[in-house]
């Protein structure tokens, strides 16, 4: 008798699949220059309060040109002891004390450069797929980390004025929120227009998620 139906060969029926939330189109993860000021989807960077599925969309820090004033100051500090040849106002000191004065001066210069650099590297603004985060280190021991959910953002504007800012394309992005921190200010960040555009895209995406019921 011909086999009409063999249950062992029958493929198992698939369980009705749950609607899968499409992933947000955040772009590719990419390697970045460690000193970059505008990093899209940075690879290998995370922050303290990051949630498991949260992804950093943009990492922003002040434009590198804003470091110029302290860099000039640092160069002057490095060169300053050379002027002692022309203005010998430490000559009343014994040589040992003069030597110590110069060494202490260079140590202060080193720590000045290091502190300014640390401040630039770690004072960052993050835009993730869920919220905006502002990390500020005000001094050696005082830090402030504020964040706000994307859906609580009410208004985003940017300010860009002046010759230097126009030439180097950087400015301030002001974000008004309905959260505890009413205003977030991303100061002197590169490409402020694209940052505003990205935040607006994320707001629209967040609204769409709400409508479709895929809010995390």
């Amino acid at each position, binding site marked *: 008798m011909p086999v009409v139906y063999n249950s062992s060969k029958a493929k198992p029926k698939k369980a009705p699949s749950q609607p899968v939330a499409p992933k947000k189109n955040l772009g590719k993860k990419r390697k970045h220059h*460690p000193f970059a000021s505008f990093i899209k989807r*940075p690879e*290998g*960077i*995370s*922050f*303290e309060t990051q949630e498991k599925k949260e992804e950093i969309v943009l990492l922003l820090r002040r434009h590198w040109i804003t470091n110029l004033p302290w860099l000039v100051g640092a160069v002057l500090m490095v060169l300053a002891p050379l002027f002692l040849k022309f203005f010998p106002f430490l000559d009343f000191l*014994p040589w*040992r*004390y003069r*030597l*110590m004065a110069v*060494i*202490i001066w260079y*140590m202060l210069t*080193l*720590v000045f450069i*290091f*502190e300014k650099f*640390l401040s630039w*590297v*770690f004072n*960052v603004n993050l835009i993730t797929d869920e919220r905006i985060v502002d*990390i500020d*280190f005000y001094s*050696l*021991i005082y*830090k402030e*980390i504020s964040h706000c959910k994307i859906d609580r953002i009410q208004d985003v504007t940017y300010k860009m004025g002046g010759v230097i800012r126009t030439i180097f394309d950087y400015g301030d992005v002001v974000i008004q929120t309905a959260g505890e921190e009413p205003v977030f200010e991303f100061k002197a960040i590169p490409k402020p227009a694209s940052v505003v555009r990205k935040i607006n895209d994320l707001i629209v995406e967040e609204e769409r998620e709400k409508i479709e019921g895929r809010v995390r």
Partner: protein
Amino acid sequence: MANNFFDQLVNSLLSIQIWGIAKVLILLVLLLYLVFAIVVIRQVHLMRRVLNGVLGWPLVTVAWIHLGLAVSVLLLAIVIL
């Protein structure tokens, strides 16, 4: 008796050399600087914890070199001043 005591006090104060005071002050400043260098190391660790993956070990290395320099300069000051 009291006059004798004050004479001794004034004499001992006069016998202290100005460079001796300068040395003590410099050592005090360098000692404070050493504490500051330790705080800088702690600060770098805290910053790295807040934002992980940004220039990790180079910054820690610089902070430790800075502490090493602070110790060296303190020792140098003790020896040469």
